[in-house]
């Protein structure tokens, strides 16, 4: 805490991004930019059906095609036990992961891989795919979450019995899990309420929409050594997953992350990497695989769609007396929706004595969902925030006031157990109220909405190495792919801790062989946990510098102090020596014991929870139902902004994605369960001209568990937008919409109903 209040030289400035020039000049190498001599091109044959039995696969004609070097199908993969096991830091069921990347007896979604081919050219690989004959027996399918839960729904997995229900069900269903949280007594709570709002909400699955499709090159040699170059959020996670799925020693795989063109959670898993490696292990030639945008939509995971019932009661002064929440999340073809965090986050911003949250994890014939920015939270919090807005309207209370009245603060016990520490939720509400935006006037057909959001933020395993060169410059070796500017923020922390110029610190992202295990870039952890590791590695450097200085001056190590980038004798008693800079000491490294290199490896704890509050103004065209976002402000507690521009970028990016989620993004399936809009033309993420400049207000309530006060930033800003936009639309047209996306046809329909 003390350090967090100190004046910093680098931390808090808007330093130039170390990867900036490479990126704006097109030099930066992304996933698809890697090539190796003798490289083959791999392509995937995907299921045209949403749900079908694979009766046979005949690869003979493809195998004999000139130029085809390897073919794999489900039979090339080991059957793994169905259990949730740790993979580094996450829980994963490797049987399901393995089946998700390559179908076995059944295909469970349109786009499910059934075979992959490596050939000397893309054209040959495509021809080979056309020659593979797959015989399917089409089964009835289910796309919608409510339909999947009905007793007569087609069953995806005959061995799936609902967990969390006593007694355990005897028949299989699509409900993988039921979870619940409760406190107090909701019946008593609703009796105390003067107003009760109960609403049903639906949200659509939305894709992370990263601009760079999945791309990978894998190369296996005859001695078992494997290398992978890939676009990922975590090179160590790719290594761990490939080692499990292909049953290889971890040490036999080396993974090098490319620059990454967006991930947002979608690149926390593997799709192509194990396939490319399996093909390469057959052909002993490098294999490159790049997904098309269509493949990204058909077969990589979005986040869950949902069906939710929210009932909230409040006294006439706005005090919330009870909340009853039921959440049904689609998991896609295999269990594992973010229902748990969805349940835990639903009411987290509020102090509610009587609450109950029940959640269901439901499988449907869609691609398996994967993490997307604060996975699970935006869905449940959207519904709860909408109801709170409606209560505020009904009670004629300002929506910020009703939130402040019920806001969680230090000491509030969350429904899921713990008490909050130093959180900054109320501070975001106050900053929102004080903003020029909130004070500004609106015109006809315009409306304003607000909403808040919470996300946990995490720590996890991180390593860092700082090599000090003889000229006093530093090589900073990091283990997390840089998605949101982490090279800059971590180099700034290194410069600050070492007392050297930021421009003398050169950060690089290591392959898996350069550092110990690093959990992936996700959970808003990289600047927080990576920052802890970098700070510790810098402390290790400083310890070595002091030790070298003690040698040079021939005084005890305790008599050497480190301050502002210089070693000095602790006092006149310690000796009368001129201070030495880091560069001075580094220049004499060989003479004083060899290179100076600091290391740190840790499992970061103490991540600070994040809260944000958004304000949105819209104008609704009452004749077409079209919504224009006029003005948007993101307010967020970030602990401490190491690099304010990249913090603002995260806040703006989260809001932009949330606005897309709110207004236009949805998957459109036909009656056969085939996706109709597998491309950016008809899957409508916002384009630049759809959005105003998104304003940001950074609130800094320092995290006492971090030397620079850092809390995670990247995920919270996608939580509030859907409810903020819905609130603004409600304010403009007087109708509280409950289904996403709030697309023009849907709004026009509501307007016509109203008339």
């Amino acid at each position, binding site marked *: 805490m003390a350090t967090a209040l100190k004046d910093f030289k680098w931390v808090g400035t808007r330093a130039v991004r170390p990867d900036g020039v490479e990126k704006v000049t097109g030099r930066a190498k992304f996933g698809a930019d890697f090539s190796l001599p003798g490289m083959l091109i791999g392509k995937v044959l995907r299921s045209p059906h949403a749900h079908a039995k694979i009766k046979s696969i005949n690869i003979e004609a493809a195998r004999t095609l000139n130029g085809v070097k390897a073919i794999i199908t489900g039979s090339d993969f080991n059957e793994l036990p169905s259990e949730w096991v740790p993979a580094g830091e996450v829980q994963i069921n490797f049987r399901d992961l393995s089946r998700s990347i390559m179908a076995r007896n059944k295909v469970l979604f349109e786009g499910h891989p059934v075979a992959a081919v490596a050939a000397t050219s893309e054209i040959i690989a495509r021809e080979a795919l056309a020659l593979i004959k797959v015989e399917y027996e089409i089964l009835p399918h289910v796309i919608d979450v409510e339909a999947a839960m009905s007793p007569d729904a087609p069953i995806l997995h005959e061995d799936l019995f609902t967990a969390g229900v006593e007694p355990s069900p005897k028949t299989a269903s699509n409900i993988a899990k039921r979870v619940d949280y409760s406190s107090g007594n909701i019946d008593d709570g609703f009796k105390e309420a003067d107003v009760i709002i109960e609403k049903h909400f639906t949200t659509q699955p939305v894709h992370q929409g990263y601009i760079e499709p999945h791309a990978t090159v894998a190369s296996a040699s005859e001695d078992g050594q494997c290398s992978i170059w890939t676009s990922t959020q975590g090179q160590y996670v790719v290594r761990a997953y490939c080692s499990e799925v292909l049953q290889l020693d971890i040490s036999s795989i080396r993974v090098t992350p490319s620059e990454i063109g967006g991930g947002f959670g979608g690149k926390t898993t593997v799709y192509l990497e194990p396939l490319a490696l399996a093909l390469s292990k057959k052909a002993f030639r490098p294999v490159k695989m790049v997904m098309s945008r269509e493949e990204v939509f058909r077969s990589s995971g979005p986040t869950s769609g949902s069906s939710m019932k929210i009932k909230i009661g409040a006294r006439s002064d706005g005090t919330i007396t009870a909340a009853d929440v039921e959440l049904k999340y689609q998991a896609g073809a295999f269990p594992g929706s973010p229902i748990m965090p969805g349940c835990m986050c639903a009411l987290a911003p509020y102090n509610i004595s009587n609450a109950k949250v029940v959640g269901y994890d439901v499988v449907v014939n869609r691609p398996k969902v994967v993490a997307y920015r604060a996975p699970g939270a935006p869905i449940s919090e959207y519904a709860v925030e909408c109801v709170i807005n409606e209560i505020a309207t009904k009670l004629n209370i300002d929506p910020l006031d009703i939130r402040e009245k019920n806001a969680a603060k230090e000491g509030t016990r969350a429904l899921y157990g713990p008490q909050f520490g130093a959180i900054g939720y109320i501070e975001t509400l106050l900053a929102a109220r004080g903003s020029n935006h909130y004070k500004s006037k609106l015109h006809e057909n315009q409306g304003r909405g607000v909403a808040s959001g919470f996300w946990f933020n995490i720590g996890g395993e991180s390593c860092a190495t700082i090599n000090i060169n003889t000229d006093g410059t530093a090589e900073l070796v990091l283990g997390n792919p840089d998605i949101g500017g982490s090279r800059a923020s971590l180099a700034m922390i290194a410069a600050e801790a070492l007392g050297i110029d930021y421009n003398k610190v050169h950060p690089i992202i290591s392959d898996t062989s350069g550092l110990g295990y690093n959990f992936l870039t996700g959970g808003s952890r990289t600047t927080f946990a990576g920052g802890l590791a970098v700070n510790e590695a810098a402390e290790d450097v400083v310890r070595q510098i002091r030790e070298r200085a003690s040698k040079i001056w021939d005084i005890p190590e305790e008599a050497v102090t480190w301050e502002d980038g210089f070693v000095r004798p602790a006092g006149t008693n310690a000796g009368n020596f001129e201070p030495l800079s880091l560069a001075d000491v580094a220049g004499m490294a060989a003479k004083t014991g060899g290179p100076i290199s600091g290391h740190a490896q840790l499992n970061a704890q103490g991540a600070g929870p994040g809260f944000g509050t958004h304000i949105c103004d819209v104008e609704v065209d009452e004749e077409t*139902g*079209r919504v224009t976002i006029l003005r948007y402000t993101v307010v967020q507690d970030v602990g401490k902004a190491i690099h304010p521009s990249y913090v603002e970028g995260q806040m703006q990016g989260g809001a932009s994605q949330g606005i897309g989620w709110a207004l236009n993004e949805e998957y459109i399936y036909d009656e056969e369960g085939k996706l109709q*809009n597998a491309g950016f033309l008809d899957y*409508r993420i916002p384009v630049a*001209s759809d959005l105003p400049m998104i304003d940001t207000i950074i609130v800094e309530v320092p995290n006492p568990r971090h030397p620079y006060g850092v809390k995670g930033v990247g995920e919270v800003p996608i939580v509030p937008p859907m409810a903020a936009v819905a609130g603004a639309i409600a304010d403009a047209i007087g109708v509280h919409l409950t289904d996403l996306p709030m697309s*023009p046809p849907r709004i026009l329909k509501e307007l016509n109903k109203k008339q």
Partner: protein
Amino acid sequence: MIYERPNTVSEAVEILSKSHEKKSILAGGTDLLVQMRSGYYRPSHIVDIKNIPEATQIRDDGDTFLVGAGVPGAQLSEHVELIKAWPGVIEAMDLIGSTQIQGRATLGGNLCNASPAADSVPAMIAADATCIIAGPNGYREEKIENVVTAPGVSSIANNEFVVSIRLAKFKTGRADAYLRFIPRTEMDIAVVGAAVCVLIDKKGICLNAKVSLGAVAPTQVVIETAPQILIGTRLDEETLDKLAKAARASCNPIDDKRGTIEYRTSVAGVLTKRAAKIAFDRAGGA
């Protein structure tokens, strides 16, 4: 796959007259290349018309403009006289794609791709434009509304191609406008498109009008009753409501990923009315 780039109209016609299994004319390529890259379509023969002078120039033949079928949108949007004469046609063309696409996309390609949602086609129809078609028997000229016959199908024969589009010159009292509805602000395909061209006298009384809709039927629609609704009026509110009603009545849309029947029909009326107001203002009414 064979790619050819003839230098003259007759060379092109000669190539087209030979029998080829899957022949494609390449103008800007903003539809064709996307279809090829996505694997949906593989022509066996591509004939690029961008080396043919008549197809790549904007010519003034005295009474009319002849816009080559290979002239990109970016060039049209900088042509002062065309903008003055046909602001609606130019804005329709300019709505297609992005800045990069505008460097390639053409009026001719937009027409011959024969999409019901093509932005420039209703505008050209409302403007009474025609196209010059070259074939083995020489040239013929066809009204734009007679070109698209079904989604993806045109009345241009296999051995013919569109060389240019003919648009009249500026005339006082005449103006056009095009509006489309998309859920976003750009980079999208029309859910509904509405083009209106009006001719008014000095007092603001409508002397003639033509109204065409896109994306509301298998082909572009001409609202046949529009002239009788508009002529003789000052496009007052009541008249425009009648026009909107007529627009809705002429819709025959489908439910698809881009819009519902109900929505398309409703918005067709709204856009027609709004486009008519703009055209009327541009023509000097008010």
